[in-house]
């Protein structure tokens, strides 16, 4: 976390944290050398390299400024921050002047006041005088500075040449660009470059003609702008302004909370007027994002108040019946009665539940508790099953803990950064910007991915090494990398001998050194030139600090767990564990993947990854819960589907997860859902799964509840309620009520009480409490007696299993292979503007960037098939057929095609198979053999989908408009 030296503190070894609501003018200096200066007669000691502007701000002396901000390098263009320095001539800009030992600075004199007023007069002579009707009225730095310098007149008048008639660019759905109000301070341009790293903005022209433009003088919408909002945040006037503020006015209060999109876990200030959310402003005090944001977290919150929100509980006897609005009590009683009836007829193990990685820790904890204690079985699973379950298995096996090892900030000390099967600039954009910052500083990038991801095109970064492997050959490549490290003597023998199990290491070393694992032997398998693999291995192993970041391109394979272990092997072999700059870092797709796994969502593990067959562990939970817990693992999600089709699994409670759209082999999932007698969906919309449901319980968005999320760094962040839950109950309250209806009592008054219970039962959480979270801001677990304030970097001195365990990672080709009939390999992923199944982002203006899923195909594959950009393409696999528009792309090698699954009608998962990881059943989304051809009509599945969707919307409509008979009781 960023820190600064507090001149008021007598203890120089104990720096105080920044006040995140203060702009200190320029970034902090990281120097350990301290220098003492006097500002307006006040002595201040600050790190060498600190600007005079910042030193003054740290001492509470506010020098006027316009072009400076503490998230941007000093620029020195506005000259408003001029000061006088004893012994120096003129009026240096305090933002670009570093402090020096013994320096004496004066920030206010008559001459300085005159100079500053003159600067402001020049600015205002070319600025509209419409403060009273300006959207930034009351929140404008230019206005503040006019007041600060005592501006009383503009001697230059307003009749000269000006920019007041320039047109506003309203092309971006979320913010407008009004150049008539621009003072050309360049903060937006620098924010786009330094904070976001996109370099979409520039200053065009010289002198009076200077103006901010996007890309090649394009509209914002047509430019390279990614709508992260950094420019809007940086703008000191209303030139760049959120349209919600233009419409509604300046917010009057704010609440700090945590974004519910990806696994970065950005902190935001939800700025409100009453109970209306006006804007989300990235919070500088958020340790994960430090004031930055992306288009999803910053702007795509409109879904929370979308007309499609489910506002009342509903029930129906069968999925062919209309939904009927009922009271909470009726819905819960109906659910409990059906679930009990199923268990009476089919047995205790015939029902189960699915927790959500979108919900809070407290909510996932309660769902798994409900399943284990109230349902009386361990049939609980989570959507992490289909994304990062191999991470849990692989990292626990090798290093003893199912979690990433680092903070995000750690990357700033990495000399080489390896990104495997991940696309951070799209899927984890705020961390992607941090990565790009480090790449611009000179770190070497290695990308292992079938696609050429945008990180490889980072402006002002060095040339990255791209290992464009064939889908399904990850393990072949990671073994080849390890082979080079072992055979070229690049191992860290000191680390291995002191920190790793010798027997396991020797076994692994003998295996990996075999010639069949060499880059040359694996070249035919992976398609990656041996020389490139060798170059990458050396670039990883020969530097001081090398870090690995990986995503679903690692886990969603038949050897997902093997690959995770292969990654851990690489890090241990090179000693890149236990310090900043290194580590193994899974990039979690959803906001609370880490948390949902931590909270015991998997069927074999109680919270804290404690196995259900451990009698001691189980007895502690049984004592606390007052219930007997089954010692056998329960069904995983794919196993639930199989059992449903087999007729032995009949009831499912699903909180915040859309298995009908997100899970592979859609036809199989749909068949399973149709086979169930009771599907209870708790969600914010009628999602694809809810169309197969019998009970619909209104869910609450992250804005409507209290709780915590745990991000990819193991950082537990507070989620704070900013508006009332739309149906009166937060999600944890709904689960609690369902449990009570089932006869298993749950009584909590606040999620903090649930966290207290978690802390009492989970060794890695014993020190976590809401009070401590308020005190520290966030906590990276483990947080216990040994690590009372959490643990930013894991495995510093040892592993939870004592010694690190190398694992033999034999490469096995997937059964899903290309053939004459299915000659192409389909791989799937995500894009920046949409999130997962899209149920949230599709209900925002983000859809303007991505209205439909397309199939990216290499021009040579397209030419062979007579395919042109925009053609309808039929995509056939061994399990299904769907139709998408073609988009020619050279991001992939010939033979590989790519799509996303953000739109349900696309049917991307109609073609993916139910092949899965050998250890965890995580689906093999990343490899599907397909054929594509030009077609003229949607697939049969798509036609059926459209009909079914229309029918289900019709069954919902009367209930949504309160046209249905209130509180009617369907036969059950």
């Amino acid at each position, binding site marked *: 976390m960023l820190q600064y030296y507090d001149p008021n503190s007598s203890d120089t070894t104990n720096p105080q944290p920044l006040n995140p609501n203060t702009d200190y003018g320029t970034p902090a200096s990281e120097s350990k050398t301290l220098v003492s200066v006097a500002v307006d007669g006040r002595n201040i000691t600050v790190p060498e390299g600190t600007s005079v502007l910042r030193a003054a701000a740290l001492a509470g002396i506010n020098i006027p400024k316009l072009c400076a901000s503490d998230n941007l390098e000093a620029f020195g263009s506005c000259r408003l921050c001029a000061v006088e320095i004893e012994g120096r001539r003129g009026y240096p800009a305090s933002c670009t002047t570093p402090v020096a030992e013994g320096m004496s600075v004066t920030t206010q004199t008559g001459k300085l006041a005159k100079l500053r007023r003159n600067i402001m007069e020049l600015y205002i002579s070319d600025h509209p005088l419409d403060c009273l009707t300006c959207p930034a009225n009351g929140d404008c730095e230019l206005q503040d500075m006019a007041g600060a310098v005592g501006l009383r007149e503009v001697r230059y008048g307003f009749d000269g040449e000006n920019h007041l008639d320039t047109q506003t660019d309203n092309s971006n759905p979320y913010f407008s660009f009004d150049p008539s109000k621009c003072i050309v301070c360049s903060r937006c341009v620098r924010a786009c470059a330094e904070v976001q790293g996109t370099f979409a903005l520039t200053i065009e022209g010289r002198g009076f003609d200077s103006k901010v433009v996007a890309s090649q003088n394009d509209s914002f919408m047509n430019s390279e702008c990614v709508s992260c909002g950094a420019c809007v945040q940086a703008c000191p006037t209303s030139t760049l302004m959120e349209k919600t503020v233009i419409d509604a006015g300046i917010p009057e209060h704010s609440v700090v909370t945590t974004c519910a999109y990806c696994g970065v876990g950005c902190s935001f200030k939800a700025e409100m007027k009453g109970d209306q959310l006006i804007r989300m402003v990235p919070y500088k005090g958020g340790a994960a994002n430090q004031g930055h944001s992306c288009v999803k977290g910053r702007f795509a919150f409109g879904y929370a108040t979308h007309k499609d929100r489910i506002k009342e509980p509903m029930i129906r006897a069968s999925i062919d019946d209309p939904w009927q609005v009922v009271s909470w009590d009726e819905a819960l009683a109906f659910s409990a009665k059906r679930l009990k009836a199923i268990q009476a007829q089919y047995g205790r193990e015939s029902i189960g539940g699915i927790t959500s990685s979108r919900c809070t820790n407290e909510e996932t904890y309660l769902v798994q508790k409900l399943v284990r204690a109230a349902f009386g079985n361990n049939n609980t699973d989570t959507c992490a099953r289909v994304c990062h379950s191999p991470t849990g298995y692989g990292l626990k096996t090798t290093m003893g803990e199912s979690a990433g090892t680092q903070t995000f900030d750690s990357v700033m000390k990495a000399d080489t950064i390896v990104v495997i099967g991940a696309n951070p600039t799209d899927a984890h954009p705020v961390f992607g910007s941090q990565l790009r910052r480090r790449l611009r500083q000179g770190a070497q990038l290695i990308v292992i991915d079938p696609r050429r991801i945008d990180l490889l095109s980072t402006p002002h970064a060095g040339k990255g090494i791209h290992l464009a492997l064939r889908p399904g050959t990850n393990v072949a490549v990671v073994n080849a990398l390890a082979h080079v490290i072992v055979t070229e003597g690049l191992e860290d023998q000191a680390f291995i001998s002191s920190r790793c199990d010798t027997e396991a290491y020797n076994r692994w070393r003998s295996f990996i050194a075999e010639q069949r694992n060499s880059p040359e032997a694996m070249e035919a398998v992976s398609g990656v030139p041996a020389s490139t693999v060798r170059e990458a291995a050396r670039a990883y192993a020969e530097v001081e600090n090398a870090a690995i970041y990986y995503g679903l391109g690692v886990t969603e394979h038949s050897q997902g767990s093997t690959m995770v272990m292969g990654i851990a092997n690489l890090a241990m072999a090179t000693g890149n564990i236990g310090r900043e700059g290194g580590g193994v870092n899974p990039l979690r797709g959803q906001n609370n993947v880490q948390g949902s796994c931590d909270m015991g969502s998997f069927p074999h593990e109680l919270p804290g990854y404690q196995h259900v067959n451990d009698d001691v562990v189980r007895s502690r939970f049984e004592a606390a819960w007052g219930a007997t817990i089954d010692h056998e693992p329960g069904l995983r999600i794919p196993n639930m589907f199989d059992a449903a089709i087999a007729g*032995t699994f009949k009831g499912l409670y699903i909180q915040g997860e859309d298995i009908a759209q997100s899970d592979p082999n859609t036809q199989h999932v749909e068949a399973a859902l149709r086979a169930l007698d009771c599907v209870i969906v708790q969600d914010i919309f009628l999602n694809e799964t809810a169309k197969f449901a019998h009970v619909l319980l209104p869910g609450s968005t992250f804005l409507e509840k209290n709780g915590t999320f745990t991000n990819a760094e193991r950082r537990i962040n507070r989620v704070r309620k900013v508006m009332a839950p739309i149906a009166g109950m937060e999600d944890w309250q709904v689960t609690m009520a369902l449990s009570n209806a089932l006869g298993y009592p749950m009584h909590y008054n606040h999620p903090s009480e649930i966290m207290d219970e978690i802390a009492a039962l989970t060794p890695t959480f014993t020190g976590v409490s809401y009070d401590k979270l308020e005190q520290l801001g966030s906590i990276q677990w483990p947080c216990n007696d040994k690590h009372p304030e959490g643990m930013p970097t894991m495995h510093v001195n040892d592993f939870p299993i004592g010694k690190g365990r190398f694992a033999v990672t034999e490469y096995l080709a997937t059964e899903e292979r290309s053939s004459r009939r299915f000659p192409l390999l389909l791989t799937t992923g995500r894009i920046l503007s949409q999130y997962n199944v899209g149920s949230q982002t599709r209900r925002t203006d983000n859809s303007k960037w991505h209205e439909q899923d397309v199939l990216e195909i290499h021009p040579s594959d397209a030419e062979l098939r007579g395919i042109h950009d925009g053609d309808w393409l039929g995509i056939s696999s061994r399990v299904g057929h769907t139709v998408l528009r073609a988009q020619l792309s050279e991001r992939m090698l010939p033979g590989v095609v790519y799509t996303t699954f953000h739109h349900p009608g696309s049917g991307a998962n109609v073609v993916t198979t139910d092949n899965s990881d*050998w250890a965890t059943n995580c689906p093999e989304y990343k490899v599907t053999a397909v054929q594509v051809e030009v077609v003229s009509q949607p697939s049969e599945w798509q036609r059926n989908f459209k009909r079914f969707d229309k029918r289900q919307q019709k069954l919902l409509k009367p209930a949504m408009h309160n046209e249905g008979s209130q509180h009617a009781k369907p036969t059950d």
Partner: protein
Amino acid sequence: MSEQQLSNLIKMLEQIIANNLHQGEAAEVAEVAATHVHNFWARSMKQLIINLANTHPEQLSTVALQAVVLLQAKSVGQPASFNP
């Protein structure tokens, strides 16, 4: 029980074995596979694969059959069946 469910269980077991052949001789591989199934499979899945091994052993590889025998022994060693 459905054919598809059984074929998926067979596939899963054989996949576990294939990914652990490096563990040593057949007996060692079978032990690893049995332990994995014991730790991660639901009771009903274990019972189905045990039943299959008893009724249609030809559908499983030799190592898989060995693993199922070991699995059965592990299951016997567990606490008495669960009664909430």
